């Protein structure tokens, strides 16, 4: 059996997601343990120029599946394209980012290939020749080490959890012929907010909770602005209609793992903690010293967020020069 690791790169509108480089780096480390090589595949339309970039992170070979029908991601089209390619490459492991698309694709591929799947892994290794992934369960209240049997083992990797390492040398680019078959689902529209940092990939997140008292998030947005952060919300803020559901952080919202998480007027309910407790540094701003978030925060300021946020924004601006 070959011991290759195949990384499915994710590009959106011709730009690789940051998680792709994280997964590629993790793939290289894993391939080292398995004694195989790391290869990558990129799917899309008119994307041939992108492939070389993957070589910079250690992909020894980059397969390019270029087809107008792959311009927009649908689970069906991407699964069809990949199933053929996987048959040809016979990887021991398939890695992809645990993004909305990666999670969907991983699930469909697992059924197509009758392959083991670990979703949203935060750690990866090999034990006795088998892939072991560490993945949060119960909203991160426990971590499970799971063993994946058979080949390929599919693992989607949580964004912001793997160190990016660049590598010398460029990968060989190879065109991959893909058979897409009958495609039933199609993308008929898309709207992206340009320049908006997505919560799940952001290096910093500033969240406003019920303590915001209304839909005016300008204090949170100003701090997010100086930090280059994405803006999140607690479920209460979403239920109040102050923020869209897509901004919700928590067990029934998004899971985030930024370097810096600033919770403003958020009490720190268990369901909220489930979505953000793997953040590297947590800051809480809350007027209640007893709020559970304070005990989880690395740094807390007890005070009124409407006074603290503008002051903090100013001080960070000063420091950043």
């Amino acid at each position, binding site marked *: 059996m070959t011991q290759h690791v195949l990384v499915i790169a994710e590009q959106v509108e011709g730009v690789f997601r940051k998680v792709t480089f994280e997964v590629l780096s993790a793939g290289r480390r894993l391939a080292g343990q398995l004694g195989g090589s790391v290869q990558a595949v990129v799917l899309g339309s008119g994307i041939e120029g992108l492939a070389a970039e993957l070589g910079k992170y250690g992909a020894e070979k980059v397969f390019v599946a270029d087809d107008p029908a792959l311009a927009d991601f*649908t*689970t*069906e089209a991407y*699964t069809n394209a990949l199933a053929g390619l996987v048959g040809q490459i016979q990887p021991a492991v398939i890695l992809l980012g645990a993004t*909305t698309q990666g999670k*969907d694709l*991983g*699930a*469909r591929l*697992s*059924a197509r290939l*009758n392959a*083991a*799947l670990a*979703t*949203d892994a935060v750690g990866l290794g090999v034990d006795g020749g088998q892939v072991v992934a560490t*993945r*949060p*369960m*119960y*909203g991160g*209240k*426990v*971590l*499970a*080490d*799971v*063993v*994946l*049997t*058979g080949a390929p083992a599919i693992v989607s990797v949580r964004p912001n959890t793997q160190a990016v390492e660049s590598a010398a040398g460029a990968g060989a680019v190879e065109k991959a012929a893909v058979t897409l078959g009958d495609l*039933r*689902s*199609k993308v*008929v529209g*898309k709207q992206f*907010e340009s320049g*908006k940092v997505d919560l799940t990939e952001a290096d*910093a997140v500033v969240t406003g909770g019920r303590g915001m008292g209304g839909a005016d998030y300008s204090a949170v947005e100003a701090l997010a602005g100086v930090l280059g952060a994405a803006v999140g919300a607690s479920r209460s803020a979403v239920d109040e209609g102050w923020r869209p*559901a*897509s901004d919700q952080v928590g*067990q*029934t919202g998004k899971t985030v793992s930024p370097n810096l998480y600033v919770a403003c007027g958020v009490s720190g*309910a*268990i*369901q909220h903690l489930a979505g953000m407790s*793997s953040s590297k*540094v947590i800051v809480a701003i809350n007027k209640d010293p007893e709020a559970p978030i304070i*005990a*989880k925060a*690395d*740094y807390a*300021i007890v005070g009124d967020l409407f*006074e603290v946020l503008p*002051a903090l924004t*100013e*001080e960070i601006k*000063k*420091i*950043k020069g």
Partner: protein
Amino acid sequence: MEILVLVKQVPATESMIAIAGDGVSIKTDGIKFVMNPYDELAVEEALKIREAQGGTVTILSVGPAKAAEAIRTGLAMGADKGILIDPGDLAIDGLGTAKLLAAAIKPLAYDLIVAGHRAVDDDNFQVATALAELLAIPNISMVIKQELADGKIRCLCTVEGGTKEVEAPLPALIAAQRGLNDPRYASLPGIMKAKKKPLETKTPADLGLAAADLQPLMKVKALKAPAERKGGRIIEGDSVQAKAAQLARLLREEAKVI
């Protein structure tokens, strides 16, 4: 419109989760089990479609006998009937669950399957999409709005940084995301009525599946508690400005995150 809804019984989200003595499962005593919150959205959407177009809403669940409670909750919300697939002593993974559901669904006539986009216990994001593959039907995930017309479903879905509209012909499977609707509560008359609604239980053998067909490919080797955060350092200072300046300095010099 024949609609199937996938439902799972999970620990209530406020539960404290503790690792059991075997090291690979959780302690279940004292835990309240509820319908997976995303599945509530799925049931609600199915009921809305039935109210608009007529038809039947059937709830399916894979789980132990106790999981029938989650199906009853769905019946009390207004669904018509339920099927519980009880794997008994068999340990099954997400793919195995999808295989059981596929076997139960294949003989049924259906136009649409509605699922929650993940179960908040395993956080696998696998069962619904894998099921669509096993049934060879299209799937659309992260749905926050849907529209049915001319034998097709058109959905608005959240993706990183925006939304997408995806269309597929029926039969199809859609997976519900927060924002799709506000699930109704089961009313008291609803709960009374639910007791009389049909709820069948099936075993893997009833579905023609043997243990070998359901052999888990993913197995939990060990559960561990995440590292405790030490936390709780409250920034002191004479004024808001002083505290803010101190925090900014610590974030730069100590935490090195800005």
